[in-house]
């Protein structure tokens, strides 16, 4: 009779294999029976995988057996050592067991399945071009090109001789015709009436002016051409970066802002009525588990959490505290 009952029980239980490897954070299910795994574990391509607290809970309720790689079944005490080996604290397991027994679906927060990179409209060619341009600018960051030197003698230079500072600057015009001015006798004998009659009227289509060879900096005071070339290169790089800013991949802060679920929680609790692994579901509330005798949480951290329930565990009993998260409106209590 006992042997028959044991065989019948063995036939109806879920079989989970524990390999003992520290790299895996889940246990593999080798035999699926019943409806427990419809709301537990992770369904994958090669079968189900369960977290250690789920495996120990199934074993504690008699729905599963955990075996080692050598085929031996583990006892409940050895199953608790699995929790210790996989860094699951006892307070987390006790809170999970308590909420699970009420009938709710308790799952660990999973990674978001939506690829936020794909939602942003960035073409791969433009992305590659941005990467190449960024790489070029990073490589040529400190290289100043030897170009666009219109007149190296235009800026003054200062010399310090025995405490006396003198400035040297060459003349701007080197034409000898402009250096020697005309005498007054020749200016008086110019026939102005003849010259004025030969002047052409101004035409509406004026020829375009020649662009300057360099643009001066309004904000910076440049004293030599070396500094001028450095500032010009920096301005050019800033212009290129500003032009490519819209094509930049989104930063980590922007991705975090677009997250749907709350981060840094231990469990998400769902309603068992319409839960399915393949359908997206919004959790009823989130759960944070910690020991009552451990270090307390900061009040500044509590103010940022919304729709979060705290499970404080003390020697096998769990106390649940719900926080408002957002600031409450005190005017609602006046009337």
């Amino acid at each position, binding site marked *: 009779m006992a042997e028959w009952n044991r065989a019948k029980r063995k036939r109806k239980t879920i079989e989970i294999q524990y390999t003992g490897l520290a790299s895996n954070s889940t246990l593999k299910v080798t035999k699926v029976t019943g409806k427990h795994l419809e709301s537990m574990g992770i369904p994958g391509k090669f079968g189900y995988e369960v977290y250690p607290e789920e495996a120990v809970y199934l074993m504690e309720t008699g729905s599963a057996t955990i075996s080692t790689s050598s085929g031996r079944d583990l006892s409940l*005490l050895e199953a608790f050592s699995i929790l210790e080996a996989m860094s699951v604290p*006892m307070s987390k397991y006790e809170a999970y067991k308590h909420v699970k027994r009420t009938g709710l679906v308790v799952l660990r927060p999973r990674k978001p399945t939506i690829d936020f990179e794909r939602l942003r409209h960035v073409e791969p060619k433009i992305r590659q071009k941005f990467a190449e341009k960024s790489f070029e600018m990073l490589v040529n960051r400190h290289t100043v090109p030897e170009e666009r030197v219109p007149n190296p003698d235009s800026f003054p230079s200062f010399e310090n001789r025995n405490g006396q500072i003198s400035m040297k600057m060459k003349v701007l015009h080197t034409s000898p015709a402009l250096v020697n001015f005309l005498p007054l006798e020749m200016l008086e004998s110019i026939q102005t009436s003849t010259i004025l009659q030969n002047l052409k009227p101004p035409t509406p289509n004026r020829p375009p002016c020649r662009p300057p060879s360099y643009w001066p900096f309004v904000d910076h005071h440049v004293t030599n051409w070396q500094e001028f070339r450095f500032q010009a290169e920096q301005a050019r790089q800033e212009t290129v970066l500003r032009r490519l800013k819209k094509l930049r991949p989104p930063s980590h802060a922007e991705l975090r802002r677009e997250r749907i679920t709350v981060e840094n929680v231990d469990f998400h609790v769902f309603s068992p009525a319409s839960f399915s692994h393949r359908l997206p579901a919004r959790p009823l509330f989130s759960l944070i588990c910690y020991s*009552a005798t451990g270090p307390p949480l900061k009040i500044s951290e509590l103010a940022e959490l919304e729709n979060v329930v705290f499970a404080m565990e003390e020697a096998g009993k769990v106390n649940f505290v719900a926080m408002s998260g957002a600031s409450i409106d005190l005017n609602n209590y006046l009337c």
Partner: protein
Amino acid sequence: MSHEILEVPVNSEKRKVEICHVTGRFFASKSDCPYLESAAHVCLNRNSAEDDKNWHYNSNLLPILDELVAILVEFGFANVIRLETTPDREIQRKTLEISEIPFENSKEFRTKRLVVRDFWKKGYFIADGTRFGGNYLVYTSSPNTCHAEFVLICAPITDEERISAMRCCNQVKKTLLLATTSSESTQPHYTQCTWFRPEFY
């Protein structure tokens, strides 16, 4: 401390219960609960009606307080074992000596251990009292049959915490006790806190 240990008679014929240390906790088997309650007057956990009705829940491991484990090991009622993993990934049991048991090495734990030991020798039952604002709940008989008489606070607390615990104990009809120890003697000193109303004086 050493003088009081010598007063205890060594009795090797006593049955020893296995207490396991896993994940930083101490667990005892549910089948040992009647023996511990009758012989060592240590109650592991209060049985709730929900657990009795739920036939799925067949756990036979119950958590036990660290201070109670120290008492049971000291007076010969229990042995502490720990599971170890061999290099070929097999799990074996190892019995720990009293010096090898990983108790918390702090002054607060030693104070709690002394106070719990003193209450246990007087015949009281000890349970966890975190939910009532104190450290322990002290019962005169089994926790399954009666309510607690005292809420016990061992660590030094501030006035605000004492007011909070006092108000909580007043509501639940329990007496708040403050236990203090000194370095000269091992006997704790107990102070009772009562709610005084001057209009009824």
